[in-house]
């Protein structure tokens, strides 16, 4: 077993939720939660949309392109927000990354 190393997040990064991390509806509290080992994060609508778009196939650039068209927002802004989001969740070992 070789020691893994942390991967830098860029526009070319392809990400998906790591095994053991999943989105779930929480009907008792009326919210969507991201569940991971010892963690339960209540996500807002935008975060849920980003998580759902991380399909392990499309790059962050491709997803940002789609969102910028859909929400008429500047792509650079969307992309930098997404990179920050993915970087944060990756540091918490919640994502699998390819880049």
């Amino acid at each position: 077993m070789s020691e893994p190393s942390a991967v830098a997040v860029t526009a070319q990064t392809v990400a998906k939720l790591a095994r053991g991390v999943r989105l779930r509806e929480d009907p008792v509290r009326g919210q969507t939660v991201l569940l991971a080992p010892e963690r339960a994060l209540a996500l807002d609508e935008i975060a849920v949309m980003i998580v759902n778009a991380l399909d392990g196939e499309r790059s962050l650039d491709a997803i940002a392109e789609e969102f910028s068209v859909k929400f008429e927002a500047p792509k650079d802004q969307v992309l930098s927000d997404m990179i920050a989001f993915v970087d944060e969740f990756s540091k918490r070992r919640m994502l699998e990354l390819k880049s």
Partner: protein
Amino acid sequence: MNEHVNIARTSEWNGGRVRIPAPIAMLAELTHRCPLACPYCSNPLELDGVKAELSTEAWISVFEQAAALGVLHLHLSGGEPAARRDLVELTIAAAKAGLYTNLITSGIGLTEKRIAELSEAGLDHLQLSIQGATPDLADKVGGYKGGYHRKIAAAEWTHAAGIPLTVNAVCHKQNMDQIGDMLDLAVKLGARRIEIATVQFHGWAERNRKALMPTRQQVLKTNAFVDEARKRLEGIIVIDYVPADHHSTYPKACMGGWGRTGLNVTPSGKVLPCHAAESIPSLQFETVRDKPLADIWYDSDAFNAYRGDSWMPDLCRSCDRKAIDMGGCRCQAMALAGDPAATDPVCIRSFKRQALVEQAEIDSCIEPPDFIYRGR
């Protein structure tokens, strides 16, 4: 259990009345049976025998009730949960109820085949304890010869099955100097997370204080090491650290507050606000054999005993930290101050604090005596 939650809550102290939030996590102690005999075991001094254990059907009902009550995380624990022959069946039921299912295990009793079955059953995560970074020390602490090598095998099977792995390292006087090696081992085993938790001194650990209490120097060194390692290993392994309580300034928000985020079900079905709660003799605990889980959570005297702030001494009720540490640990107040409603003696503002620190200092510097092993 070391739950991290960012789910927003509305005010719980609303005009002096407590608004009770739904629980987020449940610790299911499936059995007290365990091949290990760790001298700091969190199980009570009086252990439930196999005949007292809840049946498969009873546990499945508890899981379904917990999910309906709002529980998101289920921790299957013990004793050693692998001692239950129905572990795979219970895991299937927990996953079907929608619970995020975590197995807290020593690894003893798990085979490659059983781990594959658990993976297939929908187990979300596995938490494996290690007692040291070398076989000699680890097997001595666990009181089980050959345990270390069986744990390493279990970790490798878990990794191969693709189940996310957390390594759980309880640290104390006799293994704290191996923390760096234990962390390296966790990374090598492919763990995504390590939980480094300093021994909590009640129950079995209280009996072994002189063998377990870390020195101030060990604590400071470990604190600094964790800070450094978190930066160095960011994105490789997440380090959750529970520092030594007796060397802190303020108490922990034990269990995130009494009856506030989590509950514990014992092998025989008693429902407790935390695993050590039976050490408080004035409380009576209800069981899932007699009452629905929701009734026990919301309405039982034991769960309501230390909710909100009306039970607090003035020192705590008027304190600006009461919403941060929820008054600290009730079981620790019982054990060290003889009163479960006293200010947690760990707190710098408690008049018991000075004596606690002095005793910890004395116990930490003593040449460790032989362990008093759990249940032996």
